[in-house]
């Protein structure tokens, strides 16, 4: 169990992007679009949430894709094919509410494309027209393009530097689509908090229902600690059990972004220690 059966390096330069296929038959069997796992790499390690980006029920495997932004993801990235992830818990969170809405736009920014993938798959399977907008800083770090093409009726790409697709942000593309008069019944957005906030700002005046999948700091992931709490529609919600998806127009993103910055100093210290190559060997 928890054995890494495949490792793929999507992007080598810091921050690197890597993907694992992990043996976890029970999780693969129960997982539904929108759900995530919590893992811990070493005895001294931290518990971090990662979304299941793909799976193979027959093989009993799930995929996780991550960017090496800090100590834990860097330690994780050092594991190789054949290694085991010490602790892996899931599937966690509520599955995405899937039904036939009509046209669903799935927006993934950066590595957010990976978590949006199973959701796009599920909406497609439910008979929706799926249009995906994938955003990346630059062409080289665009992930999951092929998979998204397979599960979408249409894929649109934006890059910050104009190296591929539209020169601009995912919100520019979305705005253009809406302004062209396209009928959109639902938008799903996953990516950096600031991107999700901007997407919600774009859809709100048009009253296009928008799901945002929130990536707060988590500890247990089971509803026990409240570390993941956010304000949605004026009420406190726990992302790990009430979410991770919420009505984006109700989410207090500013509060959420402040809460994401809680451990900046500690994260920096941990990353520095990690870069000195002492992490992952404990």
């Amino acid at each position, binding site marked *: 169990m928890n054995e890494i059966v495949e490792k793929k390096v999507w992007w080598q330069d810091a921050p690197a992007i890597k993907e694992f296929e992990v043996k976890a038959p029970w999780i693969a069997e129960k997982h539904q679009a929108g759900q995530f796992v919590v893992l811990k790499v070493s005895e001294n390690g931290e518990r971090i949430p990662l979304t299941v980006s793909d799976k193979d029920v027959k093989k009993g495997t799930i995929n996780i894709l991550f960017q090496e932004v800090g100590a834990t993801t860097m330690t994780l990235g050092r594991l190789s094919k054949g290694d085991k992830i010490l602790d892996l*818990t899931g599937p966690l969170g509520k599955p995405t509410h899937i039904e036939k809405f009509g046209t669903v736009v799935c927006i993934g920014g950066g590595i957010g494309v990976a978590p949006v993938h199973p959701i796009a798959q599920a909406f497609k399977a439910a008979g929706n027209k799926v249009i995906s907008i994938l955003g990346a800083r630059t062409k080289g770090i665009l992930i999951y393009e092929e998979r998204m093409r397979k599960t979408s009726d249409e894929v649109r790409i934006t890059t910050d530097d104009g190296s591929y697709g539209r020169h601009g942000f995912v919100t520019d593309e979305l705005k253009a689509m809406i302004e062209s008069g396209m009928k959109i019944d639902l938008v799903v957005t996953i990516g950096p908090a600031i991107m999700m906030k901007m997407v919600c700002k774009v859809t709100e005046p048009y009253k296009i229902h928008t799901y945002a999948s929130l990536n707060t700091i988590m500890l247990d992931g089971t509803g026990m*600690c409240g570390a993941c709490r956010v304000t949605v529609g004026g009420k406190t919600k726990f992302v790990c059990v009430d979410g991770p998806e919420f009505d984006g127009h109700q989410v207090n993103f500013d509060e959420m972004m402040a809460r994401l910055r809680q451990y900046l100093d500690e994260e920096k210290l941990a990353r520095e220690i990690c870069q000195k190559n002492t992490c992952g060997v404990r």
Partner: protein
Amino acid sequence: MAEEKKEKKPKIPKIPRQPMPEQDPHERARNFNEVTCGFTGELSDNEALRCIQCKKPLCIDGCPVSINIPAFIKKVAEGDILGAAKVIKESNLLPAICGRVCPQEDQCEMLCVVGKKDKPVAIGRLERYVADYEAVHGKFEMPEMSPKTGKKVAIVGSGPAGLACAGDLIKWGHTVTIFEALHKAGGVLVYGIPEFRLPKAIVERELDYLKKIGVEFRLDHVIGRIRTVDELMQKDGYNVVFLANGAGLPQFMNIPGENLNGVYSANEFLTRSNLMKAYKFPEYDTPIKRFKNVAVIGGGNTAMDAVRTALRLGADNAYIIYRRSMAEMPARKEEIEHAGHEGVKFIMLTAPVRVIGNEKGWVTGLECIKMQLGEPDDSGRRRPVPIKESEFVVNLDAIIVAIGTNANPLVAQTTPGLDLNKWGYIVVDDEKTCRTSKKGIFAGGDIVTGAATVILAMGAGRSAAKYIDEYLKTL
């Protein structure tokens, strides 16, 4: 100078209640080592002699699992400590833990007859002494095991209720698997109660014992997600499921500013520190902030644990803010005293009104209001009522909320046909049988009673084991 009393009754030289050796308060307030050091052989000998071996020992009535207290104390007095351990273990599987964390003054020791004239016999301390002695000097002995029955029991949750239930069922020949959501077993004993009050090595020892006698632990398994209760029975072939998933959902105060940075639930603060060992950051990866001015809201054991943890992380000012008075605080007396000695400041008869923050989203203070005690409420305690216009502000950089927990709804939501009460706790037909409204499903511990005590949860686990065994015989 007090006048010397003229008439002094001739006294039989009595042995006073033996003091518990402990770390110096100033020193221990800065480290995570256990506060109390445990009785020495001499102290325990003396204390054991204080028990007058009542014919009708009231103390037993005060112990939720009815340990034969005079019998074990007699063995201690005779110097047969391992024999004493045997007596205790007939009723209590976790004596090293209960001896440390039971609210003895409200249980066994409250009813001890010696306590009527003098201080009661220190039953808890003796129990701890015996258990610790056994850990060092005793040998692992495989308990008597019944032949395998071929029946399978799944236990959800590895707190005291689940562990106790597993311990009995495995001995009676059933196959037992404990499913635990977290990466470590032990429930509140590992994620809630701090090292300085309950060293984790002690919990580890009890877990090891259960593993040795054949209990299977499946960690990282959140029931309701990876498997539902129904699936455990239908798919995985468990004949019985025992729900011991605790009351782990933190309550917040619902006041403005509660989601500012620096406001934590006690569960989060304690889990970071205890389970994740964040107090050893960066040796351990999980971070925790070392705040200078910290207030904990609440007056229970959880509040005491949180405030003393904050102190140990380096707080200059660590406050308890409680809406009633000192006398009403539900925490163990000993812990309140210890907290006081360590420098915790108590702001009593005070309730929080609003969390104040800065432009970066961090806490800077807490607006509070003074309370006075009015008429008694349902719990028999005098109800605190706000005093008009008595608001004041405490400057703080962190606030830890320890005002209680609720049932985590995950298992209940995914188990159709399971009756719950209006607070979401699982309904059982009586607290002895632990039978729920669903056939083959039993429940016990905090998930039935609401947050209670280790010994009550353990008692429920053992009681459930008895009725589960009976039920399995009918299959």
